[in-house]
């Protein structure tokens, strides 16, 4: 079961059960809906901006432990970042969960390193990246729901 613990790390289980930054803010400058048709997960990402800097990032919706924890940890990571920085972090995160190595020892990923185990579970990569794809849609101010398909 050790490899399963690689996926379901304590931090992921914690954020999956007790997501941070959960619930819509009173006002959002950007928002987008994401949907993973494979498992029915749906979430909405909200951004409060000051210029191009993310002042607050929140989300709501329903999903599995991986997608919920990923959204929760993503919103924590994003606060204080610029939109351009957020995009760079997504690129590194995507590399991380698909088995790439560009993220190694990158301080920007901080807690997101706990998702490294996802790369051993290809069918769960979409769960881990749903929030990030939705974030990308929000930063691009696309109003359509994004899909991981």
């Amino acid at each position, binding site marked *: *079961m050790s490899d399963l613990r690689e996926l379901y790390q304590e931090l992921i289980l914690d954020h999956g059960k007790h997501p941070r930054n959960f619930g819509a803010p009173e006002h959002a400058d950007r928002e987008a809906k994401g949907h993973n048709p494979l*498992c029915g*997960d749906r979430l909405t990402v909200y951004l409060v901006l000051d210029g191009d800097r993310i002042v607050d990032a929140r989300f709501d919706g329903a*999903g*599995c432990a991986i997608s*919920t924890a990923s959204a929760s940890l993503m919103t924590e990571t994003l606060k204080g970042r610029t939109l351009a920085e957020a995009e760079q972090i997504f690129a590194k995160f995507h590399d991380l969960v698909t088995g790439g190595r560009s993220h190694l020892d990158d301080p920007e990923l901080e807690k997101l390193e706990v998702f490294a185990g996802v790369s051993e*579970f290809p069918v769960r990569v979409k769960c881990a990246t749903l929030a990030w794809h939705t974030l990308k849609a929000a930063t691009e101010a696309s109003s359509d729901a994004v899909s991981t398909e």
Partner: protein
Amino acid sequence: MTTISSPDARAPLAAELPTIRAAYPALGRRVHGKPLVYLDNAATTHKPLAVLDAEREQAMWHNANVHRGVHLLSQEATERYEAARSTVRSFLGAAEDREIVFVRGTTEALNLATATLAATRLGPGRDVLLTGMEHHSNIVPWQLACQASGASLRVVPLLDDGSLDMEAFDRLLDGGVAVMAIVHTSNALGTINPVQAMCAKAREVGAISVVDGAQAVPHGPVNVRELGADLFAFSGHKVYGPTGIGALYGRAELLESLPPWQGGGDMIRTVTFEGSTWAEPPARFEAGTPNITGAVGLAAALDHVTGLGMDRIAAHEADLLTYATGRLLADIPGINLIGTAPAKAGVISFTLDGIHPHDIGTVLDHEGIAIRTGHHCAQPVMDRYGVPATARASFGLYTTREEVDALVVGLRRVQEMLG
């Protein structure tokens, strides 16, 4: 009219399971270091050696195109392909071989039914009646046909236990319904619908009945004439046969009245640039070179299950369903069964409090247990019961009580880890 053969008097299937399972090598596999417990039979079943051998023999020794050549191999291929049609006819209790159209599977069969009926039967005030538990493959083609023809979709709602609301069915089925398209056994809920009564009522109002039998055929005896279905579709791979082959049964007079679907070789009588004339059914609906090897494999699969006895398979799976339902409710706190209709096949759809089905599936997989998680291509069912997805364990003729026990242990492990 022929009648279903009398109930099989042989001993229960359970006594023969070790021998039966030996014919399915994959069942002896290990997954993540654990013995495989395969409980995803509603998605697809494994194939016994008899099916694999039949396909290999066909491809190795009798490979040729059908209905074309004068040479011996082509004659052999044609004879085997047509013998397979005869096996399907007998398995479904149809009257004539020409009532059996080979297709890729249930989805293609339903698209064929939709396209040909839309052209001749649907229009404003000539509606389609579906149920709330249809698979997407029995919803989407009709939606497209309704948009094109101006017909409306009517949908029979579901009761809380996963049964059809038959009072609503009676209200919705009137002379304005041209086609009733219904699932026989629900893949998401396990519910077995009263198809015989529904087809009889459809006939009274002059509606054509289309039955999605994908989940019915593997789990018990089916006789299309006793059901009174006009069209009946099923897939080979859900009844221990190959993927890419299935059949559409159609009542002979109805098939004769339907226009062609796909155009191509084998479906015509004459072709000129001014116009063409069509072959009689079933060739009219089998344009192009068919899945000959698949048809031979399907026939082997039907011989296999018929040899074991569909009555005995049904009794075995009913026993497993009762046993599994009891064990899950007794030993798994926080389990919610989605679909508890009195008439139910060996399909258990469920959720666990506080744990997403996708996570259940991943943890069980690491215990060697294969189940399905998701919306089961039946999103309206998920919406009806207010869940984004469910976990689903589905049984086959080779499933054992020990495998049900393993599922219970596995779910406890899921709860320890994620609960």
